[in-house]
């Protein structure tokens, strides 16, 4: 008998990330309510900076780190290089996020903020090298390439972020701070989040749908066009500082996203499993919601941002609150129950329960039925600058995220 846990990392490398992220999600929703007013003004605002960094590190990156500790060994058919490092990384991430978010909230860019930034950068470099060492020994696949490249962009984004943090107090950069802030945010969104989502979903979607055709060529196109576009965007913003290349990188990145969408479409069309569970429905919903930040980006490029800076806030919120949060909420219930199941199932006895018995499918649906209108109300509130809509939206988001947290805790409790 082969050991069933050949490539399965220990639960301490994964589960704490899911729990901390779920708590951060609730806190995030509460802060959106508390700082509701801030969303109607300029995006470079202490409360928005604090909330954004909590969303990025406490919620999205936290859960993605946990999931990648689970998925990288599976994708690369290797054991996770270090199982001790994730324990250190989560501590650094939590402390770093706490310090940075508090500093931004109070807008006190002092030693605590810099310590937070250094802790976060250390956590990210350590995680990236652990994933790199694990993946390096594994099979060369498009998924692996996406994951490695996403981690590289994360390191670049955070390094840029730290440079900007120093620049707030000791201005030394040649261009306006907001110019670099836009590069920092865009590289993070497209380089880290988007690429990681593409990489992981291109593995999970066909696996969950039992797709018979996976057009690898489309994935390769997506990989090259997104990365060439991003590299060009970065060089243009930092070195060339012209605007002539805008069309090139936009076309390049959009081509990549279209190729990925076609890949997912093929997976769905050739799926043996036609009945989608709520986790998968939410994943597809997230892919549809991905179009909203693009529409807003187009609006930003076509209008004068200095007149309507709330468009940029809406763009960021549409990306994190819509696309990223929806995909995470859906995929949590496609991954966490399996992770828990693998740890409670013994190899020499038939299991009494299946992963689907470890969570409540109806709850997953209710969570989204509360979250989606909350998100749309909040986004509308930002766009029309109506605080009442923002408050209504954030209340629904608080209820949805609390339900999500409770659900996650109940699943994890099954480990006992």
């Amino acid at each position: 008998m082969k050991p069933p846990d050949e490539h399965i990392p220990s639960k301490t490398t994964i589960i704490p990330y899911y729990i901390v992220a779920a708590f951060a999600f609730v806190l995030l929703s509460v802060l959106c309510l508390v700082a509701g007013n801030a969303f109607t003004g300029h995006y470079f605002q202490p409360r928005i900076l604090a909330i954004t960094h909590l969303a990025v590190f406490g919620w999205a990156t936290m859960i993605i780190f946990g999931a990648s500790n689970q998925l990288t060994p599976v994708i690369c058919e290797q054991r996770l290089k270090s199982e001790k490092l994730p324990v250190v990384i989560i501590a650094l991430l939590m402390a770093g996020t706490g310090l940075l978010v508090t500093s931004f909230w109070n807008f006190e860019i002092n030693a605590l903020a810099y310590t937070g930034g250094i802790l976060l950068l250390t956590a990210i470099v350590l995680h990236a090298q652990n994933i790199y060492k694990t993946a390096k020994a594994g099979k060369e696949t498009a998924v692996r390439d996406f994951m490695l490249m996403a981690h590289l962009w994360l390191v670049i984004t955070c390094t840029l972020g730290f440079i900007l943090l120093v620049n707030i107090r000791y201005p030394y950069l040649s261009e306006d701070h907001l110019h670099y802030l836009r590069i920092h945010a865009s590289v993070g969104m497209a380089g880290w989040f988007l690429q990681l989502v593409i990489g992981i979903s291109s593995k999970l979607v066909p696996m969950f749908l039992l797709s018979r055709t996976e057009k690898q060529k489309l994935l390769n196109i997506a990989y090259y066009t997104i990365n060439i576009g991003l590299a060009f965007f970065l060089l243009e913003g930092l070195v060339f500082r012209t605007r002539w290349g805008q069309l090139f990188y936009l076309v390049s990145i959009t081509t990549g996203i279209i190729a990925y969408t076609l890949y997912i479409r093929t997976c769905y069309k050739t799926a043996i499993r036609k009945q989608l569970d709520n986790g998968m429905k939410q994943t597809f919903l997230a892919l549809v919601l991905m179009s909203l930040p693009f529409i807003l980006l187009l609006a930003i490029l076509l209008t004068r941002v200095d007149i309507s800076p709330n468009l940029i806030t809406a763009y960021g919120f549409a990306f994190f609150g819509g696309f990223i949060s929806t995909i995470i909420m859906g995929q949590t219930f496609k991954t966490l129950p399996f992770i828990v199941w693998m740890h409670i199932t013994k190899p020499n006895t038939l299991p009494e329960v299946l992963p689907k018995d470890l969570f409540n499918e109806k709850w997953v649906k209710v969570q989204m039925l509360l979250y989606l209108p909350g998100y749309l109300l909040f986004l509308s509130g930002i766009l029309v600058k109506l605080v009442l809509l923002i408050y209504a939206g954030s209340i629904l988001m608080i209820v949805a995220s609390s339900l999500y947290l409770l659900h996650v805790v109940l699943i994890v409790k099954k480990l006992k």
Partner: protein
Amino acid sequence: MMELNIADSDYRTKMTALEALHQVADPELGINIVDLGLVYNIYVDQPGKEITVEMTLSTPSCPLGNFITNHAAVAVESALPDYNATVNLVWEPKWNADRISPQGKAELGW
């Protein structure tokens, strides 16, 4: 879906093993591996008291593959305690939807 030949001298043993394999579900789909058509063959070595289950997985990179194969062996050995069960994982012929039983298809939303 795998079919047994009633004229086979090991028919009874194979039938018992096949019934036992109905208890093993694909953890993601919640459908048993027999209805999914993942079981290709069952070989019985009567003198050696060995049973070999030849099966596949819905996807080669299935992270739960080792769980499924281990549970298949456990199920067969529980139903036929005098035998030692081994699972032989194969990728040819490639698994496809034609192998799924009508019940399995209904559960998959066909």
